[in-house]
């Protein structure tokens, strides 16, 4: 390899000398500019022939020809096809050569040799129009140059090479547009790669390239000097650093390899290192772990706060990059490291008040100098976003919690990190508060909102004792000199107040989703702490149920969670009806798991794409935030039982029994349970509730109470005993109602005393229940106060014909509704649709309606066609007929 390249070098050096001669001969720029034109022409011609012939062969030929011509011609001409490459090469090789001959071969020289070889290869590639190899070589070249860079200056050779390559590329591209034929695939791909590479790369060296373009002669001449200059430094460097530098160099070469940096960790070079790391971010084949290691070392040497902050920020982002895969979460040790680094960062920022990290600030470009505080400014502004780091850290914790099996001790261990995360959030909040105090910084309100939202997210679902501990811990962390204006230290002890303050802050200072979320969090917290009426009122005044469907899915999940929590709260308060109503929406759907994001449903009918499934998994809440589903089901079923059993007894066997169903889920379970021929003792919650229902329906309220009390899951509720007593009371009352509904037809009178002894209820309570039933017209009876009896009235129930007629009229009006809806649907948007319909579909549409309405064709427009109207209609028709 080296042999070959050496040979190449020789020839190019020759040619370059020729070139120089030419230059010196002509000595003018004009001359020089002409030459490229000639070359271009040749290029074009050759390229054209290329395309005509089979490519490979012609390439070879061209190459041959060219080499021939190059031999005969002046060196530059030969490069016809690939003038740039050769030019560059020659120039570079020239430098190299000069260097090579005059200097001792240091490591740097060796690199120069390599560079030269690569440049040569590129030139060769240009000659034969082989973009594939050019692209490869260019990659290599750029890497090599990175090592050779002195300050901001790249080797002249390199500059020349890339400048010429760019021209050549543009030329080729232009040609390509004209010629109809296509390049072959590898070539095209190579060309594209080169194009992108050059675009990106040349920007960095724009100054030098411009210099080169402007006056390649001068440039080349200055070459000498420049090349000379670095030499001494190099030598100095190697001399000064002596063996150590050498060793480090080698070592650096071995470890960094791909990155191609010499590793020298001095405070001065930190920023440069950071820049290269940042540039390689997101690229393929970058060893992130390696970079992190480097940055850790950099952090050790960082001297100024500016450097420290910069290193920390880059380091944290690099750590986050580790976990950027879609499925995997961030490794634990890196999370911890990131967390501690974020803490350090916040601490540094706190102590170094003149450094601020802000979003959308211009970057300090100069890597050489440390930034200074500009005139009239108070701060050194560093671009970055603390809130994003905090959010990311939080998300990563959630993700890792999602991945860990919640029943292991690992989960609990991981969960303890939440405390430190909370501290970070808290410190972040303080920091943003501090920033906001200075109006000149123009900290966007949104950042502060986001931090507060995160803080809220961590506390809203926790009992107040836990929040208190959390708060105390985080206050301990920060020095007593600091205080929060939003959540003052003095009020840290009251969790309810904290939530209130946080939420109110968000109401006042934010809008849209954050506001809604804050509202939901507060409702959740209130419901969790048994403040049902406030929670309910807030829920109702928020009007969220109307537009929650427009929000993103996580907010919808929060809404569902809040709804469920409010329902549970109502249950704890003994408000069975409200609890059932609230829970109906979530529990009645049979998709609790999905709606609360506590598990992925297996969908039987619709196929879910892996993408959807992944998203679904991402949305899952970590286990410690779960609402116990079994408890939820138990509460829901118990409430449904208490409402449904009396209703079932009331409706009896009337034909419209289907219409009044409170909970379909419960009905289905009950039916299923009744179909069973043998029922064993209850095993799970559902069995217990079902058997209790059966007992309650039969009037055996005591049995029902035992069944309900046997359910183990009540233990999970605070104040288990209270809830059991409440339930027993409810069962007694509902049992009484059921009994009255079922057996009223068999009684003429019934003493309140008897009822009270049957259900072990206070006579006053019994009278209350009976009065309520009478006033709601559920029971055809009267209460005799004097004799303390219930007197049932007879013959007030509907006859079978009457109930049938009612059902029929209901059905008929439903049918009319349907027809009208269909008509509306069909005719929407067209004004004369009605007329058209009359003409076209008159028979079908109109006829059907006539048919449904019986002979009373004209009457079916009356929406509220009640039973009486129907009879009247029939009678009327009879009179007419």
């Amino acid at each position: 390899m080296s042999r070959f390249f050496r040979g190449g070098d020789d020839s190019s050096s020759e040619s370059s000398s020729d070139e120089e001669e030419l230059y010196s001969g002509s000595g003018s720029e004009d001359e020089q500019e002409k030459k490229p034109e000639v070359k271009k022409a040749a290029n074009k011609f050759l390229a054209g022939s290329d395309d005509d012939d089979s490519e490979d062969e012609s390439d070879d030929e061209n190459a041959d020809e060219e080499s021939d011509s190059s031999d005969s011609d002046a060196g530059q001409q030969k490069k016809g096809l690939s003038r740039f490459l050769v030019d560059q090469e020659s120039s570079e090789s020239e430098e190299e050569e000069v260097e090579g001959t005059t200097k001792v071969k240091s490591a740097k020289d060796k690199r120069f040799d390599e560079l030269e070889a690569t440049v040569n290869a590129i030139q060769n590639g240009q000659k034969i129009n082989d973009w594939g190899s050019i692209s490869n070589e260019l990659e290599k070249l750029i890497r090599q140059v990175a090592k050779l860079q002195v300050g901001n200056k790249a080797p002249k050779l390199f500059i020349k090479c890339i400048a010429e390559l760019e021209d050549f590329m543009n030329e080729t591209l232009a040609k390509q547009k004209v010629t109809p034929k296509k390049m072959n695939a590898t070539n095209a791909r190579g060309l594209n790669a080169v194009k992108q590479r050059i675009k990106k790369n040349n920007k960095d060296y724009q100054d030098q390239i411009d210099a080169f373009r402007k006056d390649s002669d001068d440039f080349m001449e200055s070459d000498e000097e420049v090349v000379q200059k670095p030499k001494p430094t190099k030598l100095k460097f190697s001399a000064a650093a002596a063996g150590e530098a050498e060793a480090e160099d080698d070592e650096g070469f071995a470890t960094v390899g791909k990155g191609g940096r010499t590793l020298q960790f001095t405070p001065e070079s930190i920023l440069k290192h950071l820049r290269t790391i940042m540039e390689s971010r997101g690229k393929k084949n970058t060893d992130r772990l390696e970079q992190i290691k480097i940055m850790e070392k950099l952090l050790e040497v960082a001297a100024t706060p500016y450097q420290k902050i910069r290193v920390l920020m880059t380091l944290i982002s690099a750590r986050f990059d580790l976990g950027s895969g879609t499925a995997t979460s961030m490794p634990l040790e890196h999370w911890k490291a990131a967390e501690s680094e974020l803490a350090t960062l916040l601490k540094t920022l706190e102590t170094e008040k003149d450094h601020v990290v802000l979003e959308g600030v211009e970057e300090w470009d100069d890597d050489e100098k440390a930034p200074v505080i500009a005139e009239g400014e108070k701060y050194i502004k560093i671009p970055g976003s603390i809130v994003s780091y905090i959010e990311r850290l939080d998300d990563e914790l959630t993700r890792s919690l999602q991945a860990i099996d919640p029943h292991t001790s690992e989960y609990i261990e991981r969960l303890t990190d939440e405390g430190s995360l909370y501290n970070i959030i808290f410190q972040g909040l303080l920091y943003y508060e501090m920033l906001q105090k200075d109006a000149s910084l123009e900290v966007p309100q949104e950042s502060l909102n986001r931090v507060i939202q995160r803080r809220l997210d961590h506390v809203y679902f926790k009992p107040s004792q836990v929040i208190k501990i959390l708060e105390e811990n985080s206050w301990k962390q920060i020095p007593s000199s600091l205080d929060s204006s939003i959540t003052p230290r003095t009020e840290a002890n009251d969790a309810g107040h904290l939530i209130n303050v946080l939420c109110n802050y968000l109401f006042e200072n934010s809008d849209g989703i954050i506001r809604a979320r804050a509202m939901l969090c507060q409702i959740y917290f209130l419901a969790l702490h048994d403040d049902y009426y406030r929670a309910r009122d807030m829920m109702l005044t928020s009007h969220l149920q109307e537009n929650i469907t427009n929000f993103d899915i996580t907010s919808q999940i929060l809404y569902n969670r809040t709804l469920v929590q409010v329902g549970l709260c109502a249950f704890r308060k003994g408000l069975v009806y409200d609890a059932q109503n609230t829970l109906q929406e979530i529990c009645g759907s049979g998709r609790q798991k999905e709606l609360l994001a506590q598990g992925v449903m297996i969908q039987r009918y619709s196929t879910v794409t892996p993408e959807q499934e992944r998203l679904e998994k991402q949305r899952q809440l970590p286990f410690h935030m779960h609402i116990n589903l079994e408890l939820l089901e138990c509460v829901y079923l118990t409430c449904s039982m208490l409402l449904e059993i009396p209703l079932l007894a009331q409706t009896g066997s009337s034909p419209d029994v289907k219409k009044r169903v409170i909970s379909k889920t419960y009905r289905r379970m009950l039916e299923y349970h009744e179909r069973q021929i043998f029922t064993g003792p209850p095993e799970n919650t559902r069995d217990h509730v079902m058997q209790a229902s059966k007992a309650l329906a039969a009037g055996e309220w005591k049995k029902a109470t035992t069944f309900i009390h046997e359910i183990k899951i009540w233990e999970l509720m605070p104040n288990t005993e209270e809830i059991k007593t409440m339930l027993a009371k409810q069962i007694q009352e509902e049992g009484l109602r059921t009994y009255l509904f079922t057996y009223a037809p068999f009684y003429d009178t019934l003493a309140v005393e008897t009822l009270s002894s049957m259900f072990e209820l206070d006579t006053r309570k019994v009278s209350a229940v009976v009065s309520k039933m009478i006033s709601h017209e559920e029971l055809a009876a009267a209460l005799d106060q004097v004799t303390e009896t219930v007197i049932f009235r007879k013959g007030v129930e509907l006859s079978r014909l009457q109930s049938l007629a009612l059902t029929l009229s209901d059905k008929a009006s439903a049918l009319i509704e349907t027809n009208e809806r269909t008509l509306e649907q069909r005719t929407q948007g067209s004004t004369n649709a009605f007329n058209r319909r009359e003409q076209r579909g008159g028979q079908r549409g109109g006829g059907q309606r006539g048919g449904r309405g019986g002979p009373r064709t004209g009457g079916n427009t009356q929406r509220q066609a009640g039973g009486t109207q129907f009879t009247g209609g029939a009678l009327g028709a009879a009179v007419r007929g």
Partner: protein
Amino acid sequence: MVDAQKDVSVKSVQVEALVVMKIVKHCSSSFPTTATGSIVGMDTNSLLEITNSFAFPTTEVTHTDSHQNNNNNSSNDASSLASAAPRAKANIAYQNDMIRHLKEVNVDANNVGWYTSATMGNFINMSFIENQYHYQKDNDKTVALVHDVSRSSQGALSLRAFKLSTDFMAAYKEGKFTTEILTKSKLTFNNILVEIPVIVHNSHLLTSFLHQIPALPETAEIPLPTSLDDIRRDPVRASAHPSFDSLDLSIDPFLEKTCDLLLDSIESHYTDLNNHQYYQRQLTREQFKITQWQTKRKAENAARVAAKQQPLPEDQWQTLFKLPQEPSRLEGMLNARQVEQYSKQVDGFTATITSKMFAVRGNLLPE
């Protein structure tokens, strides 16, 4: 009955009293089960005379067939078997035999249709249509007599004659009852069946016999016989009892029954509706897919044209996608007709019952 005039073939049906009696007897004897039989007679101009009838041997068929059918599918019961009898193979042969025998005894030997029993007018179903179609496809001048047992038991004889309208015959022949065809042929539930007025005709012999039945005494007071001779000469002839059935005031059972039937019909209407909605959803889905495919193909073709390539055929979707079959609307139509039938029944019933109620009320009110 506008459509009746359109079908000039038969304008009215004249049924012999004998046939009425035979049908009534047969139907009421087999009551809850449906009874069917064949009728013979002849047509003169637009009048169809029905002069005799005979029952199909349903019981035998039921026995043998139900045994076999029990093995196949046990859902068949006697009623459905009987209602399918007129077009059963065995019965066609039986009918032909019977007609031959009748011819030998010099009775009109033209088959002019069939009769069936019904309860509360619930006769409109697929079986009825199929039977009538079976007869009418060969001979246009055939009718179906429907005897409603439960209504006749309330006093008034309920015997009605129906035939299928020509439009419906044509449509049924096609066997397609899609929305499109229905709109085109303007076929609705109203004009499936054509009702033909029925005239009961008594033979002269019978008329003269009826006249011999003594009427009620003209005066309230009958002069007492003055002597034994008087009694001997003019014995007291018991007059025929007037029918008190028509004074029956029980409203509820009839209306309840009708309500039940109506509710059933509405249920089946909903089933039909659901089927149709399901079909429509399927159709929209398919059509959406097709339009998607078409736009995709169009874009593809545009690209191909730009690249000077042969465009791909754009009507390939016909083979790629299969539109769902539209469910037959016939069931729904019949159902609608059935509902109409019930409603008319109630209408008619209330008409008579109201007058009775007024009469009763007049008596009950204190003077």
